[in-house]
C-alpha cells in the first residue's frame, strides 16, 4: 500500500471537529487517540495528512507549523474511524498469510478452515 501526502484544515463547528479537504468536510472522531483540547489547538490550522491508499485511510495529521526541525510525534489521529472500530487489513493479504502459516504448520487445518474467507 503506497502512501501520499495531502493538506487540509481542521475546522470546528458547533463543538465538533472536521477536516476540510478539497471543500469537503470529514468528521474527526474524538477518542483515546486525540482529545478535544488537542483538536481545539489545531482548529484553523493547515495540517499535512498522512494518508494511505487505496483505503483512503488517514493515519495522521501533522501541524504544518510544528514541522521544522522539531522531533515531534506526527500521528495525532485516525479517521474516518478509530482502529478499534474499523479494520482495514486487506482480506487478500490475510488469506495469503493464513495459507502460509498453514503450510508452515503454525496453524492447524481445523483453525485454517475456521478462519475461512469472510
Amino acid at each position, binding site marked *: *500500500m*503506497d*502512501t501520499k501526502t495531502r493538506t487540509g484544515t481542521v475546522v470546528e463547528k458547533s463543538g465538533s471537529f472536521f477536516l476540510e479537504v478539497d471543500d469537503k468536510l470529514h468528521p474527526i472522531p474524538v477518542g*483515546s*487517540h486525540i*482529545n*478535544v*483540547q*488537542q483538536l481545539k*489547538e489545531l482548529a484553523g490550522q493547515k495540517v499535512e495528512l*498522512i494518508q*494511505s491508499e487505496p*483505503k483512503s*485511510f488517514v*493515519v*495522521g495529521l501533522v501541524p504544518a507549523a*510544528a514541522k521544522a526541525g*522539531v*522531533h*515531534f*510525534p*506526527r*500521528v495525532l*489521529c*485516525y479517521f474516518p474511524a478509530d*482502529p*478499534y*472500530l*474499523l*479494520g*482495514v*487489513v*486487506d482480506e487478500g*493479504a*490475510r488469506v495469503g*498469510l*493464513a495459507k*502460509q*502459516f498453514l503450510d508452515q504448520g*503454525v*496453524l492447524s487445518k481445523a*483453525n485454517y478452515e*475456521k*478462519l*475461512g474467507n*469472510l
Partner: protein
Amino acid sequence: MKSLATFETRLLPKTFVFELTRRCNNHCLYCYNEGGTSGVVRNGEMSTDEITRIISKLRAETPVESIALSGGEPFLREDLPEILSFIKNQGIAPVVITNGTLLTPEKVAATVADVTYEVTLLSYRPDVHDQLAGRHGAWKAAVDGMCNIRYAKGNAVAVFVATKLNYANLETTAELAIALGASAVMYNRLNLSAHNLPHAQKLLPTPEMIRENLAVLDALAVKHGLPVTVSVVIEPCVIDVSKYPHIHFGWCPLAGEGSYFTIDPVANVRICNHSPVILGNLRRESFSEIYYNHPYLKRFRETWPAECDNCEPELKTLCCGGCKASAEQCYGTPNRVDPFVTLSRVGVRN
C-alpha cells in the same frame, strides 16, 4: 499544545477499565498487576448486581462511552455475558481485555455481539508465548480463541507485549495476528511495576530492540493497511517516535478527560490500571467527588519529575514525564521519571 498551567481537569472521562477479578489462569512474567496470579479470590469480588450498580452509577455521573473489562482474566467470571449485555444496554461500548485462553466457541457466541476483544499474542512460537505467559498450552488456547472470534465474525485486536524474550518474533507474530483476523495490533513495551521489576534484567527490551520493532510495525502498517497503536508510553527522549508516522502513539492523559480510570474487583478507584494508588471506593463515594477533590490527583497532574526539567517544552507537554504510575509502583512516588527512561540510559543492574 497542552499547557501545563491550564491542563483541563473539569471534563469527566469517557472511558473506564473495570477489573472484574484478580484471578487469572496465566502466570505472565511481565504482568504489572499487583494482585498476582494465584487464582485465589483476594478480598472478595463484587456480585453481578453490585457490578451493574457501579456501572449505572458511572453512567449517571459521567459521559462514559466505553468500558474495558479486565482482570485477572475476565472470562473466569461466569457472569461475563450478563455484565456485557448490561453494558451494551446502557449504550456503552464494551471491550474485553483477555489472555484469550478461555475463548471457547460457546463463550465467544455468548459475548461476541458489539464487543471488541483485546487478545494477548506474545509470539508466533508456542514455546516463547508459553514461557512469557507462564503456562504450557496458553498459546494454543489463545490462537484457538482468536479463530473462534473470527468464525463468529467478531472484532479482535492482537496485543503484543514486547520483552527481550519475544521482540525478535514481532514481525511474524504480527503477520500471524493478521492471518487470525485481528483488525489492529497494539504494541506495548514492558511497563515496569513492583510485580515484574524483579524480572527487569531478563525482560526489559532495550531502546534498540524497540526501534527495530517500531520499524517493522511501521512497514507492516503500510504494506497491509494494519492499524498499529502503541499504548504504553515510549518517551521521545529515549526514542524519536516521529520516525514511525504510520503508528499511533498513546500518551498519559494525566488523569484528565482522556483518562481510563480503573475500578478494581471491590470497587476501589485508581487513576489507571497501572497505578497502585487507591483514591476511593464507588460503593461509598461518587466518582466525581473523587475526580475533582482527591489531593493525589492534583499532585499527579501537576508534579513533574526533576529529570524532565531540561526537556524541550513541546516534548514535555506531550510526554507528561512518561508513565507516572510505573514510577509510583517502582519508586513509591509519581515524582520520579518513568523507570523505563532511567533503565534505558543506565542499563538494568541486578
